[in-house]
């Protein structure tokens, strides 16, 4: 019952299917491919219904650029996760601003942080849309330089970088 006849031909046809798929995939997503090759891909949640049109979309920042920005500028890290997770461990210097408490906490936040301060927002990694949604809200609130660190807390922790834990009260 196990039929391996013409295996070489079958493998060749597999390669042809893959090549066809690559050509179709790249041509169907030409704009995205160009953005990626130029080093400015869209954030992975930019196609959500919450995303506004036009230039009001936050830019992504990867781990290496994030570390450079932390050292060289006044970049403020913002943790979009719930406060329990923030307390359990967060990036050094990060400020907690949970997405579901944004309405009540935004006025105080705006008084403390000027609108031209560069911000980088993270949550629980690539599967988590909260950092993007929070970035959209902060852009709408008048902050000019808002980036999303999509790797988030898991990538930072798994890279062996320092994590700050709040002591229990």
């Amino acid at each position, binding site marked *: *019952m*196990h*039929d391996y*006849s*013409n295996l070489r*031909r*079958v*493998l060749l*046809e*597999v390669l*042809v*299917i*893959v090549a*066809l*798929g*690559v050509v*179709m*995939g*790249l041509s*169907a*997503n030409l704009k*995205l*491919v160009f953005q*990626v*090759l130029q*080093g400015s*891909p*869209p*954030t*992975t*949640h*930019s*196609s*959500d219904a919450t995303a506004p049109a036009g230039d009001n979309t936050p830019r992504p920042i*990867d781990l290496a650029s994030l570390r450079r920005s932390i050292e060289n500028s006044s970049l403020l890290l913002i943790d979009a*996760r*719930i406060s*329990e*997770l923030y307390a359990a461990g967060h990036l050094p210097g990060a400020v907690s601003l949970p*997405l*579901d408490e944004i309405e009540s906490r935004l006025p105080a936040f705006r008084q403390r942080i000027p609108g031209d301060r560069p911000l980088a927002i993270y*949550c*629980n*990694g*690539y*599967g*988590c*849309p*909260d950092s993007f949604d929070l970035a959209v809200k902060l852009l709408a609130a008048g902050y000019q330089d808002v980036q999303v660190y*999509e790797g988030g807390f*898991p*990538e930072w922790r*798994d890279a062996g970088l320092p994590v700050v834990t709040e002591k229990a009260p």
Partner: protein
Amino acid sequence: MNSLLKYLYHGSRLLLGGLFLFAGFIKAQDVVAFAGNIAAYQLLPYQFNYLLAACLPYIEIIAGVLLLTGRRVRPAALLCGLLTLVFIGALLSAWMRGLDISCGCFSPEAKTSIGEALLRDLGLLILAHFSFHLRNRFTTPRASR
């Protein structure tokens, strides 16, 4: 017995083709979100997540259509099997590294079950196996590719 195998072959081929066509179609609708899903596995450099997300749905669509239409069934089934093996490898590596594949935004306990995904992939492998190996029994040699 022979007719039973015939049903098994066509059933496997049509189900496998339908699943791959469906999966490819869904992912082709939102390539950027799919890139985010791939990135969560932390297996590829940043840009490659996007390129793979752009191409993989179309490879799945082509393989699915070939299986459904009964043309080039053996290469299409082999490709589906190989892709499934890659998915299994990625899942296992994510599981061994203890990665947070799920969101965990609101409840830290919410996890997608890796066991469930592995079981589904095992089913795909079985379908690909029957499609590949039973193909030449029910077709004339001339069209037996």
